[in-house]
């Protein structure tokens, strides 16, 4: 009943361009933001933050990044893990080289550095297309992980080969390092994810977004109607990598605190984020959130039910998880290539007409 377009006329193109043209959606969006910023921080404990909220928020940023490249610009990348590693090591080097500068600035700079690396590995996309490119991005994945593993400068010659985040504060409150409170870490990630989503939304609804989608849908036609493929693809690589770099920086500095590159940023991470956008919805910012939430919650759910509830060994739950994730990927590709986001849209469409379907 409340979910109506009727009577909600748009009188200007500005209004029509809004992210949430329907009032009810807009209110729900403000309500969600309110809950996320003003209520959840007071309710959460360490378990929820570390098992659910932080990974969800951080993966959502990575998924937004990959979605820009793959979902909007049509360039499949299997190098997400490697680019997250760039973000992590960049922020680590910055934090240790310039301890007096705020870590928040370092995190953003880590994104910028990753954007540069992304452009470098995006250059071949001008010549290589489709899964040739997908396979080529594996070069980035393997090379970068090797680099951070083998060149001691990147891990400051530490004996273990690991990097660990020193304590840094914001307004007197630690936001990296072991002393960080759960709610502080949560809020930092929440701010980043909110800004990322807004920026991504803005970029994808304007001329840049249309360039990307034109390249995605038909690159030759796009070039003939005036899109410079070089600019479009490289900007997609840059911006995508920027977000992926942010997420890598947060993953290391705020979430894990210590990282061994091969373990944390291996090829499985690349696949995980790719799966998030397939399940959530290619070419949808909301889908990036949905996919991240789904794949973060699934193992938690399986663990609680199978291991906690039924008392099965953990490895069984892990094997089942692999099967479910793999199976879902196939099911979504066959039945709903636009993922959860599309399912949600269809449901809304129905709601809009409810209770009179004609």
């Amino acid at each position: 009943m409340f979910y109506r377009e009727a009577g909600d006329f748009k009188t200007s193109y500005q209004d029509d361009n809004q992210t949430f043209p329907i009032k009810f959606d807009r209110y729900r969006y403000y309500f969600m933001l309110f809950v996320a910023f003003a209520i959840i921080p007071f309710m959460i404990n360490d378990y929820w933050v570390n098992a659910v909220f932080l990974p969800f928020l951080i993966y959502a940023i990575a998924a937004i990044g990959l979605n820009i490249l793959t979902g909007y610009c049509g360039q499949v990348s299997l190098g997400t893990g490697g680019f997250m590693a760039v973000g992590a090591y960049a922020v680590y080097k910055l934090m240790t080289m310039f301890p007096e500068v705020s870590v928040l600035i370092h995190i953003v700079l880590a994104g910028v550095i990753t954007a540069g690396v992304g452009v470098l590995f995006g250059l071949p996309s001008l010549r290589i297309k489709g899964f040739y490119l997908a396979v080529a991005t594996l070069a980035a994945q393997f090379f970068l992980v090797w680099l951070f593993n083998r060149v001691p400068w990147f891990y400051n010659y530490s004996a273990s080969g690991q990097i660990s985040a020193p304590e840094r504060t914001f307004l007197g409150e630690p936001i990296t390092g072991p002393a960080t409170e759960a709610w502080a870490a949560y809020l930092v990630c929440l701010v980043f994810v909110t800004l990322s989503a807004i920026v991504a939304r803005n970029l994808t609804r304007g001329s840049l977004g249309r360039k990307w989608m034109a390249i995605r849908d038909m690159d030759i036609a796009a070039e003939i109607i005036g899109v410079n493929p070089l600019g479009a693809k490289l900007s997609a690589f840059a911006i995508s990598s920027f977000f992926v770099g942010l997420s890598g920086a947060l993953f290391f500095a705020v979430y894990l605190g210590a990282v061994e590159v091969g373990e944390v940023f291996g090829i499985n991470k690349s696949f995980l984020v790719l799966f998030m956008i397939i399940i959530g919805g290619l070419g949808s910012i909301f889908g990036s959130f949905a996919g991240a939430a789904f794949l973060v919650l699934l193992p938690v759910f399986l663990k609680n039910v199978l291991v906690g509830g039924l008392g099965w060994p953990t490895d069984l739950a892990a094997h089942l998880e692999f099967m479910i994730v793999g199976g879902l990927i196939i099911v979504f590709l066959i039945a709903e290539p636009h993922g959860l986001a599309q399912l949600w849209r269809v449901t809304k469409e129905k709601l809009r007409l409810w209770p009179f379907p004609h």
Partner: protein
Amino acid sequence: MLDQEQGYVTADGRQIGGTVMDMRNITLRFGGVTAIKDISFDIREGEIRAIIGPNGAGKSSMLNVISGFYVPQEGQVYFRGEKRAPMRPYEVARQGIARTFQNIALFEGMSVLDNVMTGRLTQMKAGILSQALWRGKAEKEEVENREICEKVIDFLEIQHIRKTPVARLPYGLKKRVELARALASEPKLLLLDEPMAGMNVEEKEDMSRFILDVNDEFGTTIALIEHDMGVVMDLSDRVVVMDYGRKIGDGTPEEVRNNQEVIDAYLGVSHD
């Protein structure tokens, strides 16, 4: 004959201006196949110029040369009096040449409106920061260009499908959306590759009317490829006839129709 500087007056009394596009001795080969053999012709300001010929004659290849998608092995392209340096297709588009394709090349994953808006991409200049924040130039430019696109959408009578994903449209409407996308860029030269292929009579009439209106209202110069001779005779001011990559006729519809070589080509007289 034609006056190179002055142009000419058409049968229905329109004044045609000087040369916009001048193709000189174009030869295009694909490996062993010669798609275009030493062809020269011009396109003049404000005219509707048809390119006709049997299948495989090299018509689409010719449009692709104009678009910069194929680079001819020999010959030069003069656009608005200047010899065109070798350039990428997107640079050609930025010079004000827009086109539609023989096999519809719309962006299937986008709505009709977004497809039409892509026609404005060459004109949209907002920086990345402005776009990221959706402030200043980006927002302003979006609205301005949207207005132009809405005019085109009204003009082609596709308001009702504005927000529909292109993939869901029937063939005839897709062709119209493709024309809208080309028109949105306000081209100086519009290239249409078989705009009426696969349409029924009624749709063809609509499309013919749109093409005439575009030419009439905006003074757009148009080059079009078409198989339907009736349509060609009605629409075009001058016709180039191609066969097996050669030019076998050039002139008004009337002249071309009476050209023996053209008649032979169309009746399928064997080549030797």
